[in-house]
């Protein structure tokens, strides 16, 4: 089969601009051939090169005393957690593949992030995910399609994670029409490793052999990175061949074989997984990092089917493959281990010192490109950014014209929404307990997992993923800042202090200045949040072009924060614990209704400015909760988020004992704003009644507004509001729980 001629049409089809093509010719000092054109197109796609976002990403704080591997240096960042142990973690998206093939798209998303982690030499110990879909309620547009996507994504995640034996311990799922046709699938993985056993992805030492291990290469996932770097259209179904097919069993073997191999540091020079852009990316990136060159012969690559062209082999994104640079003379170490695990393992080339990525096929050179320029010198664009005129309009909110809804019915209705209802239907499909580390069940404010640091020695980590995209859509910088604050708040409630953050920036087409403005502002917000909490960004992912013919998604800069709880006895639950305990509200009473769940769901109004955020108050809240937990004063803690105070109170009654509460509030603000407003920097905690006044005093001293608002007990949640016209409401906890627990199932059956 002869290669097609390079025409302007072919160049455009590869997503390369005329200027980019000229740059390629300048680098090569000649015209590229078809294979080389394909190689450049995937390496210079947004997915691999971050050419549109990299200038923005440079704003992130990435350093700190605990940072062992910085963002962008390797496949994942590494943070020191003490006693010679570190954690590698990262979040990555698989949005486009999941839109056209939800099961495999999501499954291979899990597979990809797992490889990013064990490539670093870390054993993956838990997974989380952040998902977005269009509405699934039967009366909403596209509900059947959205349910199919949700069911497919959940079973794909379950399929891969359950089989490989890494627990999926938490996550978040939200629904909004902006995700119709373009769901978001962001997957987070964390692994542990000894700090002196971090593996790097550099090819050094001319003459060292280059090994290919793992799954055979097939024609699946051809140019998936390029596919992920353009808008989804009506024709995207034709891109199904760009979706990879995952085999978690092979990945499990690859994981164990690699970790076994890494126990022989003398034999391993470098290692890199083959993810986006497969063989292309792993060869040129390892050479670039090693300031070396690399030469491989495709005839030596284990292949699933005969007759694959060099173009196909180089661009395939077949899963469960790794590239390992072995120290010359130690070839037998690697071949023996992979033989034990019955996995393909082949020497496909060697490291050179001429700086070229040279690809041969049966000895004939088919591509020859300077590795560094290919991997690291993709064009960088400073995109135009314009504040969307629609933002001002969206922020306008005339509360006077909005009547106060029936409070009694509203709580039940909010608890039944897909956003708030229990996600048990989802997480019970995930093995969330394997590896005997899961301390809190999914559904808590943050996941708490004990991770092994040596034999029968543990560290207690808390982790949470978060993003209220409605806030971001209404005011991107503030919305992104709130995402960081809320995620860190979730951690503080469990007793954890934050260590580091990973992010997944899901946005629309960056060529649209309004979309790019949202990205720019969100990055500013995330950066400000990280600086305030003094935590570094250790890496993440950018997913642009998230738009269907109906328009872009709501901008969704998902954040994942990992924290540490220094002592197991400080792990704090979110549910009420004992009858008679005092309930204390931390933070202001609050009355902001803008961009709230209440307005969206009860009044059908998607407007208003998000609640304001004072980072100083936020930090004081976290510090105060943590220190009170350490003093043993706090028995349960739950933050206030979507749905405000009343929803937080209801959720706190949903523990094993279903303990109710009686609450007394004194307020002159409108009742719906008091009960459902989403003002920031707030939490409810419980303490023994005899300690209540001392705790309130202590919290006030620490600069955190605190007041006792009620007592745990009984079978009802009763709320009394005094004021000019006293009001009283009461809900049967069992009935509320039934609504909350059963609604999600009812949308899916």
């Amino acid at each position, binding site marked *: 089969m002869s290669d097609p001629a390079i025409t302007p049409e072919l160049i455009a089809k590869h997503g390369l601009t005329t200027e980019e093509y000229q740059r390629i010719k300048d680098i090569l000092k000649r015209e590229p051939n078809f294979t080389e054109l394909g190689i450049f197109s995937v390496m210079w796609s947004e997915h691999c090169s971050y050419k549109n976002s990299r200038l923005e990403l440079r704003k992130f704080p990435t350093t700190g005393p605990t940072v062992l591997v910085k963002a962008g240096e390797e496949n994942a960042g590494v943070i020191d957690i003490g006693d010679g142990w570190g954690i590698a973690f990262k979040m990555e998206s698989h949005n486009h593949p999941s839109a056209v093939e939800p099961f495999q798209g999501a499954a291979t998303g899990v597979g990809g992030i797992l490889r990013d982690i064990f490539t670093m030499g870390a054993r993956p110990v838990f997974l989380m995910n952040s998902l977005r879909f269009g509405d699934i309620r039967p009366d909403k547009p596209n509900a059947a399609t959205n349910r199919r996507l949700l069911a497919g994504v959940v079973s794909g995640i379950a399929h891969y994670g*359950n089989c490989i034996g890494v627990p999926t311990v938490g996550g978040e799922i939200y629904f909004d029409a902006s995700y119709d046709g373009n769901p978001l699938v962001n997957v987070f993985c964390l692994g542990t490793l000894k700090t002196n056993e971090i593996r790097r992805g550099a090819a050094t030492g001319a003459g060292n052999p280059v090994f290919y291990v793992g799954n055979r290469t097939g024609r699946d996932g051809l140019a998936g990175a390029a596919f992920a770097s353009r808008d989804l259209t009506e024709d995207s179904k034709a891109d199904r061949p760009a979706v990879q097919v995952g085999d978690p*069993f092979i990945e*499990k073997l690859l994981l164990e074989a690699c970790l076994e191999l890494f126990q022989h540091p003398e034999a391993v020079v470098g290692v890199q997984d083959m993810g986006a852009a497969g063989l292309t990316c792993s060869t040129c990136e390892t050479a670039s990092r090693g300031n070396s060159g690399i030469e491989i012969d495709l005839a030596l690559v284990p292949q699933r089917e005969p007759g694959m062209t060099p173009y196909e082999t180089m661009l395939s994104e077949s899963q469960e493959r790794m590239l390992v640079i072995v120290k010359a003379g130690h070839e037998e170490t690697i071949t023996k281990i992979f033989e034990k695990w019955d996995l393909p393992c082949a020497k496909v080339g060697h490291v050179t010192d001429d700086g070229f990525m040279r690809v041969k096929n049966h000895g004939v050179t088919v591509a020859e490109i300077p590795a560094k320029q290919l991997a690291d010198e993709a064009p960088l664009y400073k995109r135009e950014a314009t504040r969307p005129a629609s933002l001002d309009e969206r922020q306008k909110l005339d509360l006077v014209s909005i009547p106060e809804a029936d409070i009694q019915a509203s709580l039940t209705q909010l608890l039944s929404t897909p956003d708030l209802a229990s996600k048990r239907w989802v997480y019970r499909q995930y093995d969330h307990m394997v590896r005997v580390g899961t301390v809190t069940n999914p559904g808590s404010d943050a996941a708490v997992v004990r991770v092994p640091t040596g034999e029968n020695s543990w560290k207690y980590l808390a982790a949470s993923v978060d993003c209220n995209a409605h806030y971001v859509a209404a005011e991107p910088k503030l919305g992104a800042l709130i995402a960081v604050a809320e995620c860190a708040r979730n951690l503080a409630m469990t007793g954890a202090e934050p260590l580091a953050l990973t992010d997944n920036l899901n946005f629309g087409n960056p060529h649209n200045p309004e979309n790019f403005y949202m990205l720019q502002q969100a990055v500013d917000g995330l950066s400000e949040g990280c600086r305030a909490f003094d935590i570094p960004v250790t890496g993440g992912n950018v997913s642009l072009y998230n738009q269907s013919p109906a328009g872009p998604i709501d901008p969704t800069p998902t954040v994942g924060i990992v924290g540490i709880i220094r002592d197991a006895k400080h792990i704090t639950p979110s549910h009420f614990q004992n009858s008679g305990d005092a309930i204390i509200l931390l933070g202001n009473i609050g009355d902001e209704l803008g961009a709230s769940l209440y307005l969206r769901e009860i009044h059908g109004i998607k407007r208003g400015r998000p609640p304001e955020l004072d980072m100083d108050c936020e930090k004081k809240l976290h510090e105060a909760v943590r220190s009170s937990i350490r003093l043993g004063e706090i028995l349960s803690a739950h933050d206030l988020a979507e749905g405000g105070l009343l929803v937080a109170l209801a959720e706190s009654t949903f523990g094993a004992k279903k303990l109710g509460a009686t609450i007394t509030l004194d307020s002159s603000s409108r009742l719906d704003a008091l009960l459902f407003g989403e003002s920031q920097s707030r939490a409810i905690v419980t303490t023994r009644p005899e300690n209540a006044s001392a705790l309130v005093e202590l919290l006030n001293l620490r600069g955190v507004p605190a007041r006792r608002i009620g007592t745990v007990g009984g079978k009802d949640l009763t709320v009394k509001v005094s004021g000019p016209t006293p009001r009283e409401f009461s809900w049967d906890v069992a009935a509320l729980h039934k609504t909350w627990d059963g609604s999600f199932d009812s949308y899916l059956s």
Partner: protein
Amino acid sequence: MRWAVIQFPGSNCDQDAFHVLKNVLHQDVSYVWHKDSSLNGADAIVVPGGFSYGDYLRCGAIARFSPIMSAIKEAAAAGKTVLGICNGFQILCEAGLLPGVLVRNTSLHFRCETVPVRVEHPASRFTGDYMTGQVLNLPIAHGEGHYVADEATLDSLFLNKQVLFTYSDTQGRNVPGANPNGSQRFIAGITNREGNVLGLMPHPERASEKILGSADGLGLFTSILASHGTPLAQAA
């Protein structure tokens, strides 16, 4: 006493079982690779959960051809203790060491949650530390845990007291809503006729430390220790 934890390609609860035996019960335990042919004189063998051989073809169907399986069959015939958990239960059924088969959950979904499990009787080497009718909180995590056998087999399993565990509600009643996978007669765990080979779908190793929410599974391991005449190891 000596324990062996078998590792098949795709086993993923092997390290959990090993941890409980080693660190919680302070036992002499070692891994045995599926390509080996010797159990190194182990008194008790754990066939752990996971997805051996990716569960391709049928759960446990390929694992039964692994070289180590003949050693396990010999050990079972010699009266050694064999404990198959989850995928291990499926393997023991496929290997013919236990009657019946495990098929797809009636919900067609993988299901992971802690469920009440009733102890049928304490007269076995696996349940000596429990009481009849005691309700344990044990995690399950499987897509194919629906136990099926013909009526005559089911009758004989109950008649011979081979059924050690059934799914129940928190009061210990075998009521319809309490069956997480559709297992016939609520069966969660059975032994062979001789009583030395147990297969169960719930994961006792995931419920052996309080910090994980339940330590109800520890009794299964301590029962085995007691039946082997080993003084009760100190639980952590």
